[in-house]
């Protein structure tokens, strides 16, 4: 029998099921989702600003923000009542499974563009929930996970210092001295670079420095390894980073608490953490 004939014999559902297609619900318009309705501001110019973020329109975002600022709206209000609301809605749709990573990235780009504009008017950096330092371990070139972490942190109102990849441990220590972060995220994708994490902790301790927690994540990193030294918590998904940061800021959790309550804090089943 030929390949084609064989192909025509198959009842696909006996071999593989496309569950993603099977369970997909009806399409929705992003701004009609009931939870999004609750988040979005109803008054202008905030609504337009938020919607531009929600619709991932970087150019519109910038135009709207500029217009509002020109009209004398306070930059702080533009950020908090407009841009951040839009981003909150985006995050929510991502969590609900309607939005995807590219939506987040593009909406984030739009939001950040607007924030920068506001900060220029403000003359200084805007108030954030706190500063987080993010780095990729020395010797490791894999930076996509770290980029996501940074994006999620920013989208959730944190100032994220992006140190890049292959960052010397000494530089990490310097950054802690300089920024006194409330949280730090390290990413390593290799067995032979995740060993940098305990070295960072040692170096910090040697200088008498402490960070409430260092989230250590990345492809090859295992929880058992991360928990074999102090100050650390094993980070599973990039979007957990702001939730961990929130737990530190709001609930004064330390690394010990984060380890113990990880699943609760991120609000979902995490197979490594339960």
């Amino acid at each position, binding site marked *: 029998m030929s390949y084609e004939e064989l192909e025509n014999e198959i009842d696909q559902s006996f*071999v593989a*099921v496309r569950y993603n297609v099977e369970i997909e619900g009806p399409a929705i318009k992003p701004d009609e989702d009931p939870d999004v309705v609750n988040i979005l501001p109803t008054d202008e110019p905030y609504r337009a600003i938020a919607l531009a973020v929600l619709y991932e329109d970087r150019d519109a975002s910038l135009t709207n923000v500029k217009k509002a600022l020109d009209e004398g709206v306070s930059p702080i209000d533009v950020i908090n009542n407009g841009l951040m609301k839009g981003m909150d809605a985006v995050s929510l749709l991502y969590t609900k499974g309607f939005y995807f990573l590219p939506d987040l990235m593009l909406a984030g780009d739009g939001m950040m563009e607007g924030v920068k504009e506001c900060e220029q008017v403000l003359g200084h950096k805007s108030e954030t929930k706190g500063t987080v330092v993010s780095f990729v371990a020395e010797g490791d070139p894999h930076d996509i996970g770290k980029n996501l972490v940074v994006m999620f942190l920013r989208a959730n109102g944190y100032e994220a210092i992006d140190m890049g990849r292959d960052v010397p441990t000494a530089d990490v220590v310097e950054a802690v001295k300089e920024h006194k972060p409330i949280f730090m995220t390290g990413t390593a994708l290799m067995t032979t670079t995740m060993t940098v994490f305990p070295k960072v902790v040692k170096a910090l301790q040697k200088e008498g420095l402490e960070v409430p927690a260092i989230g250590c994540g990345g492809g090859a990193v295992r929880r058992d390894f991360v928990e074999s030294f102090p100050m650390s918590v094993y980070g599973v998904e990039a979007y957990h980073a702001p939730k961990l940061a929130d737990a530190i800021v709001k609930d004064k959790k330390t690394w010990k608490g984060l380890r113990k309550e990880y699943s609760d804090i991120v609000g979902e089943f995490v197979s490594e953490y339960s």
Partner: protein
Amino acid sequence: MKRFTRMAYKNPEEMIFGHAKFPVSQRSNIQFGAGYVVPEVKVAPGEGTEESKEKMVSECRNIAQSACERAVAVGLPAFMLEQEHIFQQTSNPDWTAECTRIQAETLEKYYDEYDIRTALMATSADIREEEKAPGLRDSDLYNKTMESIEASAANGASCVAIETTGGKSVSDYGIARGDPKAILFGIGVLGSIDMEYMWKGIVNICKKYDCRAAGDTDCSQANTAMFLAGGLMDKDCSHTIAALARAMAAARSLVAVECGAVGPLKDCGYENPIIKSISGVPIATEGKNAVCAHSDLMGNLTAAVTDVWSNESVYHRQEMGGTTPEVWLQATGYEAALMNTAIQTGKGETLRDLYTLTDKYRDPQALILAYDNAYRIGEAIVKYGNDPYLRARAAALEAGAIINEAVESKKMYLTRFERDSLDNALKIFEELPSESDQFIDECIRKYSRKVAEFDPKSYGL
């Protein structure tokens, strides 16, 4: 109890993966042997989880949850989770109950949400100890074992299994020393007697619940022999002796079916293809996707007539590709998918034959399980079907004949060790008494003296 004296299949060609003469249905719309192969995953609880019920329950939940997640992520239409219980679970039936309940619930949740067909096999540990009075029967450990099986059945297991250990004391002695008579006595006689005792009870328990009595495998004897036999270069147990042990194990494990077990017969001992040829019940087997657990010499061949394709067992921990329940379910899932594609396209027989021929002459242990040879051993067993001793002996003799024919036709070559130990064993087997009673008497006398743990009372002897 009705013994098998006829073959379920008219000829070996009738046998093929995914199809059993007597398919089994379970909850969540899953069938075994009904025209498709079901992948299975099995994960050993991590170190420390034995410390408390809470930890063990959480471990069991995580294993089930991870498996479900991956199944859906890669599109498996169906799968089975088997949980092999450890001592602490079986000796505390409330642990069994709780672990089983949470796993059954997890699987059901995914069935409801995605329509994915799922099944849970709960395998209690046989925690009985022959060397501690009163031995295998009516001891406290025996009672706990049965209670634990009931706890599984009552709390949502789709089916239960166990690896009973009757006869192990004597066969251990025989395997380590290359003593064929001890192996035959341990597996063929003591093993069969103990299985009957255990399985009548298990089948009765299952009747009370929506739970199937699945099966038993000769882990403690045939698998021990295979494990000691090891790779081609190992020098611990002759591979021809291990092959004979495997053949005898089929005569033993068949007893579960004779007592009312319906399958899928549990993987591990590798004797299942022979039992399928006799009884027609669906079977679980393992092979190339069980490399995590051990190295066999027939990774493909064992897939030829399988109904449930298993990974045998793996540590519960993280891999780069995910947690081990994810990784290994995906491994067995992809192989099952290949088999199901072959079934769908009418190429099942070709794939079956390729699987078989890949390993048939890799090792004598593989050779006797090639489905044609498995069938021949099945025939030898049913010929003496009513006598556990004689049928186990016949199985061994047939296996020996199969190996010798392959050697004669220059398709298989043996090392001196394999050659000598086979000749020796076959000679001994040929000269054995033709009466069960006489053989048993002789063995009781001989092995009571040599094997400290062996206690005839444990077998009602």
